[in-house]
């Protein structure tokens, strides 16, 4: 079993997430793409933990999950507050600040 496959898969997921952040318009979808990036990092960490024979990577994956959960709480609160006012979660509609 080659661990490289897992690393390549994680890199592909990370890229999909990063491209999604750049091209999608809905704040919730952008946020989901960021979560995808974080999860691809988890996959990378666990794979490297397996490759190096240490558990550090697996423990770090737990840290990442906890931090991601905290980020969801804060992020959804912020997106919710702007959605209630504007009735839209599109990042293109938030255009008062520019230049």
């Amino acid at each position, binding site marked *: 079993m080659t661990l490289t496959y897992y690393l390549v898969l994680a890199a592909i997921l990370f890229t999909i997430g990063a491209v999604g952040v750049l091209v999608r318009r809905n704040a919730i979808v952008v946020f989901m793409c960021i979560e995808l990036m974080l999860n691809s990092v988890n996959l990378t960490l666990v794979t490297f933990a397996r490759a190096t024979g240490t558990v550090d990577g697996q423990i*770090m994956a737990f840290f990442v999950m906890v931090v991601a959960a905290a980020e969801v709480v804060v*992020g959804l609160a912020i997106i919710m*507050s702007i959605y209630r006012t504007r009735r839209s979660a599109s*990042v293109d509609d*938030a255009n008062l600040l520019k230049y």
Partner: protein
Amino acid sequence: MIEAPDLSLAALAPLLFIFGAACVGVLVEAFWPRDTRHPVQVSVALVGTVGALVCTLLLAGSREITAGGALAVDGAGLFLQATIAGLGALSLLLFAERSLDPARSAFVTSAAVPAGSPRDRELLTSTRVQTEVYPLASFAIGGMMLFTAANDLLIMFVALEVLSLPLYLISGMARRRRLLSQEAAVKYFLLGAFASAFFLYGLALVYGATGSVRFSDIRSASLADGTDILLVLGLALLVVGLLFKASVAPFHTWTPDVYQGAPTPVTAFMAACTKVAAFGAILRLLYVAFGTAEWTWRPLVYGVAIVSMIVGAVLGLTQTDLKRMLAYSSIAHAGFLLTGVIGLGAGGEGSGLAATMFYLLAYGLTTLGAFAVLTLIRVGDGEATHLSQWAGLASRSPLVAAVMALFLLALAGIPLTAGFTGKFAVFRAAIEEGAWPLALVALLASAVAAFFYLRVIVLMYFSSPAADGPTVGVPGLPTTIVLAITATATVALGIVPGSVLDVAEQAAIFVG
């Protein structure tokens, strides 16, 4: 059997102090009666920050690695922690100002009520104040202090999030112009989370390359096999995540929007403290973990320093809003700070570390003061941040105009102000490391940037005031204290910088 890691409580005292105050603040928020909560919250937050400042000063000179190797307590870390705690205490005083806004606070009463709804209009004039910002700001300050002390990448990541998450929230809590503020919060959050994902992927790659995230292990691994592509790629991603927090161009796009939209006290806090924390982390990462593999990061930092100085200086020229202008100024200053990082030299032998630390202190005090002046000039019920509204301010309020002129001159780096000493120190460090082309670009960028600072001064002193111009608010005690301290320090660090420079030089050592 799991062995408990060694934990030096004395060395951790500053962090325990500020995080303790933040937790007490949360309890006060839950249990203290609402009508007397504000003074209590302010006191708790101030006790936390000032206590942390005193603890760092008492610890001066100690040098150890504690918490199982995860935290480093050393001269440079303590200097930066003291800077963050001091600037944080001053920012909290700005938060606590109650005599400028007619509704007695710069923060929205209830952030959950939709902007513009009948309930929101009802609350707009009520003098009920919201006190959640104090524990949130305390957590952010604690995260920043942890950020500069982190001795491994995982702790650094956790600290990054602990400092960022409260900042996302409090930048969306302005009482006036709530739509702008909420938009700033969304932009800051989405881009900030995007940048942390990059930092995290960098962490994973470095872990894969070296088998550890401890800085000392990374250093020995980079010595043994410095050409590992995984390691270099991981370092690049880590640096991108940190440069985002430090608002260095080309990762700066959030800065003008967030600085403009956030409540001005929060902008002051972000401009001063986040910058110190982010550069503290950059310095520690590059010095301790990658100091021996200087060639891996030098070209990257060299390039972004030039881009940042040029973007900040040139785009700053076109701004008509003072908060945006100061945001571009902060981008340019991030570039100047990176010249100091280049001055670290191979293995950290250059004078860049001390110079950058001094620059951070000087810049933090000056920019905090400039934003504090911004909160005084008001039109209607909000702040007058458009340039044209500042015309002829000197004839209306000579003192406020003089103080603002002082801060702008310091930001421009005119001699006899703190800004000049700081710039001189970082440019000299860069030249000593042979980076004279960088110093040349920095000088040219300073000259361009000086133009837009001086334009405001000319506008204040040599234009006739508009008929329906803004009013100059009379600051209460907190803002007065902030203005007095920052203005005095700006002058003092310009005229007699010797003692502080000496302290910075003695402190300029990282353990690892």
